[in-house]
């Protein structure tokens, strides 16, 4: 079967009952997509299908022929990190890093739709991605920072985000 992943066509052979999560990780070596429950209850395995974030653990791969699939491996353009990836690094928004791929892709889809999201829009968009490390705060700040930079502003993390309040 031919799958279109990160802009490239790939011939992949796999058992027909395998989910996209399994095929990406086990048959294509794209282990950047993680998993936390395999039941659609945590959002860790999120990837983009046609630009929309979905749960790869509940997506049957054979039904996805002809769709554009984006994984975390396809987020950076060549050697350049996506502004979201840079902002996450700047703010320590990836602690253990396990929910990070799914959150980055979900945030990327948000910014495509809403270039300057409000805090509430960020919270709503990420309401299906659990994170146990960060309390989400640094993630919100990183999405806001990336959005500002993508809008061409020379934005830096806020002082309170980095050093705490006075």
């Amino acid at each position, binding site marked *: 079967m031919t799958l279109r992943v990160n802009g490239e066509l790939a011939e992949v052979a796999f*058992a027909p*009952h395998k989910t996209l999560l399994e095929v990406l990780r086990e048959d294509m070596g794209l282990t950047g997509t993680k998993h936390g429950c395999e*039941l659609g209850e945590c959002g860790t395995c999120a990837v983009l299908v046609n630009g929309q974030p979905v749960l790869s653990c509940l997506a049957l791969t054979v039904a996805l022929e002809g769709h554009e699939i984006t994984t975390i491996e396809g987020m950076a353009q060549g050697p350049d990190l996506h502004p979201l990836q840079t902002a996450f690094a700047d703010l320590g928004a990836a602690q253990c890093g396990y929910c990070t791929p799914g959150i980055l892709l979900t945030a990327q889809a948000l910014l495509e739709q809403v270039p300057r999201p409000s805090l509430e829009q960020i919270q709503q968009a990420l309401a*299906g991605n659990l994170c146990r490390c960060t309390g989400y705060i640094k993630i919100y700040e990183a999405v806001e920072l990336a959005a500002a930079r993508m809008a061409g502003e020379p934005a830096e993390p806020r002082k309170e985000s980095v050093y705490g309040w006075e």
Partner: protein
Amino acid sequence: MLRLPKFTYLQPKTVSEAVRMMADAGPEAMFVAGGTDLYPNMKRRQQTPQIVIGLAQLDRLRTIKGKPAEGMVLGAGATLTEVSENRRIRRAYPVLANAAELISTPLLRNMGSIGGNLLLDTRCNYYNQNYEWRKAIHFCMKKDGEICWVAPSSPRCWAVQSSDCAPVMVAIGAKVKLVSREGDRLISAAELYNNDGIEHLRKRPDELLTEIHLPPTNGWLATYWKLRRRGSFDFPVLGVASCLRLAGDGTVEDAKIILGGVGPSPLEAVAAQKAIVGKKLTEQTISEAAAAAYPVAKPLDNTDFAMTWRKDMARYYVSGTLRELAGLSPNGSAG
């Protein structure tokens, strides 16, 4: 990694091909649209179809058409995101857009279909568990066992109706189109559901839900309140859909108050409806309706939260929906 069992996957290109495949395959087969209900159940071996008929290629099932004044028609395969973000739906049927938007998470709504949500398997803390867990309690009558652990003396299954859209569709009087090789039929949403945790649908297994016919928007008002622990992920452990038609002076001409999440099917609070029909919505009448709704809710200890509190909340939620529709000062959501 929790994996799907092996099965045969068929991908029909048309509705007629889909129903033919189903008729040929018989009881071993199931339809799947978004897969967000069926695949977890298959991974936990709660549902074990040998043949799965995927509806992903039936683009016709994803259309949203019609005018609100005449009643819109939703393709059953439209995703919950498509329904909740559709401009006409948002404007003309905000109750539905709202209910759809309250389902699970954005990720799941990008996959799950409106039809799938209406047909959602009933849920129970003794049932939505994997095979080994269920083995540890010697299974339950809904799958592989004999007894209902929630109500061991009961002859029936008390798994809970957990769709957010179902009570809304029943309340507003939507209809659903079921297609099979035997022909098509259009039944009311209320008729789709059966008050039994196992046989919770009146849709035959060989029938495919293709369309949802929303009623014309001709003056009724409706709202939906959902109770759950978290603002996302969680299924409703109580959902109240109220739909009213008000006369010019505010008298209630017609009322539907439907409780979801507190029984195996959406439950009509008939006495609560009676308490307000022919009257104006006042603190007094609303409080009477809420009290009348209380005994209708039959929560048991098989979802999140203590069942007595959930039952208490039925009163509060019915009151909340009616206050909202009456334009009275809100009593604030429970959660």
